[in-house]
Every structure is written in C-alpha cells, then in structure tokens.
C-alpha cells in the first residue's frame, strides 16, 4: 500500500501535465485533478488498506483486554516480524494459571480417575 501511495506521489504530476486542457465542472481538468482527484486517491487507498488489513490480519481488532488474555499464547504478529516467545504475563498470576491447567486436566480425566482431587481455579 505504501508503494501505491509513493507511486501516486511520483506519477500524479506527470499525469497532470499530460491531461487534456478541457473543463470539468467548469474548471480546468488539471486543477480538478490536483484539488480533488489526488486527495481522493489517497483517501481511497487508505480505506482500501483498512479493509485489507481487517480481512488479512486477525490481530487487527484486538483491544487491550484481548491482548492480555492472549499473551499466554504468543502470536507471530504479521506486521511486527519479531520472533515471539512465551512471555509470562504479569497480569495473570502463575497460581491462577496452574489452577486452570489443573482443572482442565481434571476435566479431561473425569472418566478415568475419580479419586483425583478437584481444584477449583481462583
């Protein structure tokens, strides 16, 4: 998308010098292109970029709470190519996480071992 914007910046004056000298809405075509056409091109590119990113980047709509919950499972952010690692989340205590893991394991083994202690998270 950045390349399209740069191409618009480079190519627009060249295109404007080659426009036929006729009138659009009563004004010179070059004036209309520079005053209305070019800003509109940038606006369309920005809207296109937003819709593209909305469709391709599943992290796009995450807000802060969602980020806190998901930090236990590191994601490879498409737009930030730094290798993600498992970072302990300071907002989610280890005991709580351990309790949740214990509960999950307990639920999985519910049919086999009735004597396992039930630990309730929190």
């Amino acid at each position, binding site marked *: 998308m950045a390349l399209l914007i740069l191409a618009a910046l480079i190519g627009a004056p060249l295109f*404007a010098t080659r426009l036929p000298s006729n009138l659009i809405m009563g004004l010179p075509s070059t004036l209309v292109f*520079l005053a*209305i056409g070019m800003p509109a091109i940038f606006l369309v590119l920005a809207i296109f970029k937003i819709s593209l990113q*909305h469709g391709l980047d599943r992290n796009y709509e995450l807000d802060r709470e969602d980020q806190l919950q998901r930090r236990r499972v590191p994601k490879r952010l498409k737009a930030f190519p730094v290798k993600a690692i498992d970072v302990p989340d300071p907002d989610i205590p280890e005991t709580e996480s351990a309790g949740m893991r214990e509960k999950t394991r307990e639920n999985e083994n519910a049919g086999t071992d009735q004597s396992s202690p039930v630990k309730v998270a929190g």
Partner: protein
Amino acid sequence: MRLRVLNSFLIGTVILLGILGLLERLGLSSDLVTRLLFALLLVSLVFSGVRARSVRTTDMFVDGYRMTPLPNGLAMAMVATGALGYSFWPGEIFANQLSGFTVPLGVIGGVALMGALFVPFLRRADVLTPLELLQQRFNSRILLLLATVISATAILCVLVGQISFLFNLSSRFTTVAPESALIVILVGISLPLVLGGMRAASWLQMTMAILVGFGFLLFLAWIALDLTGLPMPHLSASDAWTATRLLQEDAVLRDLAQPSDVSWLEMLPADWRMISLGMLGVALGVSAFPPLLARAQTTRTAKESDASIGWALVFLLALVCTLPVYAIFLKYQITQSITGLSVNSLGREAPFLFSMTSGLSLCGIPVSNLQEFISACGEGHRLTASDLQIAPMAFMTALPDIIVGLGRPVPQTMAAMLACGALAALVAVVSACMISLSHHVALDLYAKFLGTSSPMSRIVFLVRLSVIGVAVATYWLLTWPPLNPYLQHPEMLILAGFAIAAGGLFPSFCLAIWIGRAGQIAALGAMVVGTAITIAMMGIGLGLDQFGSLSAIVQPLIGDAYPIAAAGLPGAIAGLVSGLVLAIVVPTRKPDTISARLSGQAEH
C-alpha cells in the same frame, strides 16, 4: 462523550457569531467584535485546560487511549496543516498557481503514508512516545539520544516556523506589540498543557479545529453570497473562473494584457520533477513527524488509529479543495476592478492599496507611494491583474482589506472570524509540537536515556516543567536577532523540519517496524547517513559555499525542484539503503532484540 462536547462547542460558536453579527448591525464597534472573538479563543484554551486536567500518566502521554476516530482525525488534520495550511497555502496558489499544490498534496500523501507504514503498528506496540518504540526495538541509548536530538530539531523548526505567522496577525488585527502577543499565546497554550498534557492538547486541537472550519469557510461563503447570491463558494468557483478568463481575453483584445495572462490555474510547469520531488520529500517528512505519530497513539485500538487516518484525509481533502476557491474569487475581483486602470489614477481609484501594511507588490515593487509605482510601472501604464502580486504569507491577512477596498462590503464579524481561524490553527499545531518536545525531555531523555528508575509521578511532573521550559525556549528563539531573516520565510523553516524528519527518522521507523533483521548498528547507520545527506541537500539548496562542489553534481539532477522541500528525499533513500545494507552485513546480536531482553528479564 467528546463528540457531545464538541457538538455543544459548535452550537455555542454559531450562536455567538450570530449575536456578534447582530450587535455589529446595531452599532457595535469593529474593534470590540475582534476582541470578543479572540476572547472566545482564549476561553477555549482555558476550557481545555480545566476540562482536561489530570495527573494520570496515560493521560499526560497518550490521552488515556480515549480518542475516537473522528475527533482524532480532526486533530491530526490540524497538526498536519496548522497556520501554514490556513494562512499560507491559499496565497501560494494565488501567487504560484498549480505549483502551489506541491506542499498541500505532499502533506496529504504523508498522512496516508504514515497510515500505511507506521500507525497501527505503533499503536499496537503500546509505547508512550514514538521514540520509545525505537528504544525498545533496538535497545540502544545512543540511538535514542540521536533520535531525540533529530526529532527535537525537526519539531523546533516546525514550531518556530508556524508560530512566526503570529507576527503578521498581531500587527494587522491588534495594537499590541508582536512580542507581547507572543507571550500571551505561549502562556495561553502552556497553561492547559501543564494541567492536562496530551489530554489537554487533544481538547485544544479539537476545539480549535471547529474555529478553523468556521473561519476558513464563513468568509468564503460571504464572498460567494456577495458575488453570486448563493453562499456556496465551491459551486460558484467555476463561474468566477470563467468570468476571470473572459475579462482577461477582453484585456488581451484591448492590448492591455499578454496572451499568456489568459491562462490561469490551467497548466502545471513543464518540469514536473519540481512538483514530484517536492511532494515526495514533504510526504516522507510528514509521515515520520513525531507529533503526528503521537496523535495516532491516542486511540483505543489499532483499527481506530487507522480510521483516524481516514478521517484526517477527509478533512484534508475538504481543505485542499477549498484552497483554490480563495484564489479564484480574489483573482476575479482584482481582474474586474483593476484591469485597465491607469497607474496615475491609482491614488483616486484604489486608495486602499496605500493603506495596507505589507505583502502587496505592484509591477514588481512593494506598495509604498504613488510616485514609486509610476516609476516602476511606467508613466500612463494601464494595469492588469498580473501587475498586482500578493505575498503568500500576507494573503489571508490582506484579503479582507482588499475585498473591502474593491468596494465589496464585508462585516467585521466575518473578517475577525477569518483572523480567529488563523490563530486557532496556530494554537493547534503549536500545542502538538510543545507537548511532543516535553515528552522527549521527560520520558525519552530523562527516564529512558539517563536510565533513572524514577516513579511515573516524577516523570509526569517533569512533563509539566518541560512545557514551561519549551515555552521559554520558543520565546527566546523567536526574539533572537540572528533568526530574524529566517522568520520572514516561515514556510522554509517548516519544510526544513519535515526534511530533517524525513532523513533522520523515516529510515529508522521503517527498519524498526518492517525489517526484522535490523539491529542497532543498522538503525544508527541509517539515522546518521540520512541526516547527513539531508543537511548536505539543504546546504546545496540554500547555496551555501561549503557545498559548492556537491551542488555542481546534484543540481542537474533535481532541476528547479524546491530545494528544501525535496531535501529530505535523498536523505531518506540513502538512510534506508544504508540501513538495509548494514542489516544484511552486520547480523543482529540476540541480546539486542526486544525478545531476548524480555527473556533475560523473565529469567530473573
């Protein structure tokens, strides 16, 4: 909530303007009307400070992540244009025709480029300042120091350039000395920033945007109403342009004008490189300009910061398509009134030309007295519209006087609102620059570079203190005699600021966000090379002797390109290339990456 308050402010401004117009008709003095409108602006400043006062860290730095897209886009558009866009661009188009679109389109392209390259990723990084991203990404204090110096230089250039428009405004519309007006404005802006930091800056920029909209459009609507009977300037512009063309053709038939005078706002210069390179240079600088990047961090989510970019582009589109309308209307009125006038009868037919303070030239010499005009134009010379030139910087301040002088009645409320809008645009951009500089001092230098383990309350206190320091430094710079020649051309200062941001910061932000292999060596190299090349290009453009040999090589390549506007482009390209080469040649050391640093902290 913010939209509701903004709506109330909008309605309040409409009501106040209506009351002032009514009072003016009933005999209220024009001086009092002007003072009341400026008082409205000061009330907005105080309101912003009181409404936005806070002690929270996130409020001081990123407005508590509370900005929604529409108000944030409005604020972004204000920061991107400021007093330059309001007071200078219409005059630039009047004076230089289609070449005057170079900087406006460069600014719009820069905002779009910023949205494509940096904005959502910066927001997602959850940093308090844009430079904190560089520090976290590359883990280098030297890089942070260099980035802070470059950013502060760029912001100072833009700040000083923007605020120097105040001198024209104060000399035209008030009787106070320019230095006193400067003190009043700096104190008025510093107070809310000390109380509320970025939160106050957001409120300031939103409320000033409403005043700018009224100021920019009301006067134009009045002119359109007077000329065509409809208060729709954009729809009447084509009729005014056509009428101007017909008048010029008639002047050519009467041997008063040259055939080249007929074509106006029709053709770009044949050397399109001038426009293209200037637009590119400005766009790269605007995209990496820290106060604009800081605006993008104040939204709730990355998607909302992208939406802010969209809204900013909408408002900038509205501004850019209004710029030529001013030029067209004034050109029509001047052509209609002045064409065919004998220079000997100017004192009788157009006495307003001699009562205006500055900015006007006739036959190439500044307006002074009649005898000098006769000498310059020639005895018995019959004037054409092309003989009258208006300096771009003086366009908006001279406009009401010219319109009244040409025999068109203009209510003082309209003229004062035009000036109030110019002042509001100045306040918006100055507040953004001042708060960014304060953040650099308090967080980037004190907390991050010096590595002091200070509590955030102390850093917040430092932000408040730095605002005062920045205001004092700005006043000192603007009243420093060696800087006076540069203050006569504020647009050059502002473009120099954008060029420094393009050469010094743009490559580093690209490497930080898009090139995973890049380490601190690559980022440092990019910054140093980019800044050096940009400074060299600016020296060539200004014709400095130290760069004479380089000039002989570079000048044939860039032709007549705006030297300052285009100076950032080669710096940005050289910086990016050198950064990429260093990223490949010098492998990234693991302890330098953010992830390795976090794992080291996690082990402890």
